[in-house]
């Protein structure tokens, strides 16, 4: 039972608490909600002939997306994102799973090893891949020295180069998401499954996979969404050959100065994202993305 002293003090405390939250509300209003509303409004306005926008309502920007050339960009982006997410899942899930089974020291070491590269700017790390992948670069030298290939592979500025870059940039999100889920798992459940007659594979699919599903799905979201929009990876490693929704938005905004269309593209991308998070919520019954906090 709460003491009387406690109940008397609560209103005052909560009033103060309310006041301390004001900066947070202001921050959210000005820096998060404001730009969102601005973008939404912008996406329904008309592009001016030379510069800026005319405040005139139109659906044209959204209809524009359905032009084959733009629609194709969406489809290509989705394909690339699916491919990358699939590869990341194949590598990241076992990685995160086995990481959770390490000794406490091993876990600490692996977490550090995953985090340390992040102290370097992502662009710089990406340029590192240019050195590795470029014609006559590190990879070519190694392969030719081992007599596995006769001439340079010319990997840079190709689709596979973009995939490699994406997988590299996003892999640790999947690993950490799966790890945080697997770390919390009660491994005696796997023993119980074995005891009840499950083979190691059956125990994995009926117990481990089910219980690490929140981490797995969260990892999928954390990799799928960014891989639709990480235009600089496509730009740097793919030359101009691979155009993503992210690149398209950037081009429309900075090169074509078609702000309303860029806004409409962004809104659609955001809707896709929300849809995925909504699905995650439905499946896992939580709003918290595993591995993010």
């Amino acid at each position: 039972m709460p003491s009387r002293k406690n109940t008397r003090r609560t209103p005052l405390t909560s009033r103060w608490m309310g006041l301390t939250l004001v900066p947070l509300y202001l921050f959210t209003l000005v820096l998060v909600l404001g730009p969102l509303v601005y973008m939404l409004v912008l996406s329904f306005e008309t592009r001016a002939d030379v510069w800026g926008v005319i405040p005139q309502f139109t659906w044209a920007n959204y209809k524009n997306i359905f032009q084959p050339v733009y629609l194709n960009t969406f489809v290509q982006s989705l394909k690339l994102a699916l491919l990358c997410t699939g590869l990341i899942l194949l590598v990241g899930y076992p990685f995160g799973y086995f990481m959770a089974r390490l000794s406490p020291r091993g876990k600490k070491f692996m977490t550090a090893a995953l985090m340390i590269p992040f102290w370097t700017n992502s662009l710089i790390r990406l340029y590192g891949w240019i050195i590795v992948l470029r014609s006559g670069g590190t990879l070519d030298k190694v392969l030719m020295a081992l007599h596995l290939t006769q001439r340079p592979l010319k990997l840079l500025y190709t689709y596979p180069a973009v995939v490699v870059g994406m997988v590299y940039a996003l892999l640790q999100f999947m690993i950490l998401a799966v790890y945080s889920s697997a770390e919390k798992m009660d491994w005696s459940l796997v023993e119980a499954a074995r005891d009840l007659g499950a083979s190691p594979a059956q125990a994995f699919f009926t117990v481990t996979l089910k219980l690490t599903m929140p981490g797995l799905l969260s990892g999928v979201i954390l990799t799928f969404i960014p891989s639709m929009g990480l235009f600089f990876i496509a730009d740097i490693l793919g030359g101009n050959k691979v155009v993503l929704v992210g690149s398209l938005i950037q081009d429309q905004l900075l090169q074509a100065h078609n702000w309303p269309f860029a806004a409409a593209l962004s809104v659609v991308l955001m809707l896709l994202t929300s849809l995925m998070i909504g699905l995650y919520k439905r499946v896992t019954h939580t709003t918290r993305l595993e591995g993010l906090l």
Partner: protein
Amino acid sequence: MSQTILQLQNIEKSFDGTPVLRGISLDAAAGEFITLLGSSGCGKTTTLRIIAGLECPDAGRVLLEGRDVTGTPPEKRDVNTVFQNYALFPHMTVAANIGYSLKLRRRPNEDIAKAVAQALELVQLTGYENRMPAQLSGGQKQRVAIARALVNRPRVLLLDEPLGALDLQLRRQMQLELKALQQQLGITFIYITHDQEEALTMSDRIAVMRDGQFVQIGTPAQVYDEPRTSFVARFVGSANILQGTVVAAGHPGGLVTARVAGCPVCARAGQTEFLPGQPIALALRSEQVDFAPEGSGIPAVVKEKSFAGGMLRIALELPDGSRLVASRHGIDQSLAPGQKLCVRCAPEAAVPVEVDD
């Protein structure tokens, strides 16, 4: 007893160089209720995990119905476990938990539903099919865990302190239910506990464990009345251990007289040969310490009195400085700390034991 179901032969096991089991052997008959009794860290759980196949022994063999299963994985053993923390699958309903092993064996759905309903009836949880484990109380989880382990009718059921997390009243009730269940199904139970009362209530045989070894294996009456060592006497009946010297040697099966704290005490000699002058340790249960008239028995001084669980505990000091605990039913007003009295015991009450602690 009928045929042997489970045999452990000289099982040894170490973890990181620390020996946990030092060569234990045990035969369990069909339908027998065997309790492994010991304090935590004595190797009880490791023994159980080796029987289940969750751990592999360094040396020794496990035989199930005469077949060597030492290297057989847990899923291929006709043994099921009730885990200490229940280990119910949190993402499955009660029915799915219980039916899990049947589903793995691809039994038709109707059969599974029927078996699950039967198992739930057995543990008196009919109607709980669609609950999730998180919605159950501790006692209910316990029952589901038992139902899940029993649904396959294994040859041997392993229970790792299954009642440890329950409150005393529920615990007593579950003890009786488990015993009844075991007798009804005729399944061999290997039951772990550190509670000597629980072991004495439920078991056909008790294996007292200490430091990875069985100190004594016997019926509750044997372990209680004829403890082999001072550890068993203290652990199972919280007995007094009196140190003395043999004065008059009796022949095996007769009586032996020892000098304890300067006074003669008679004890059962059992099957052991005693020689005069030899040191001897006698186990004497607190309720068998009698008070004697002045001038007979051993003089003692009352040091402390406490009342717990319907029993009055009286701590006494003997002339040689050793302590002796006597107990009586009800509150005795006549004793006070500092009071001098004399104690003695009936000859059949004191049992010679090997000193091992």
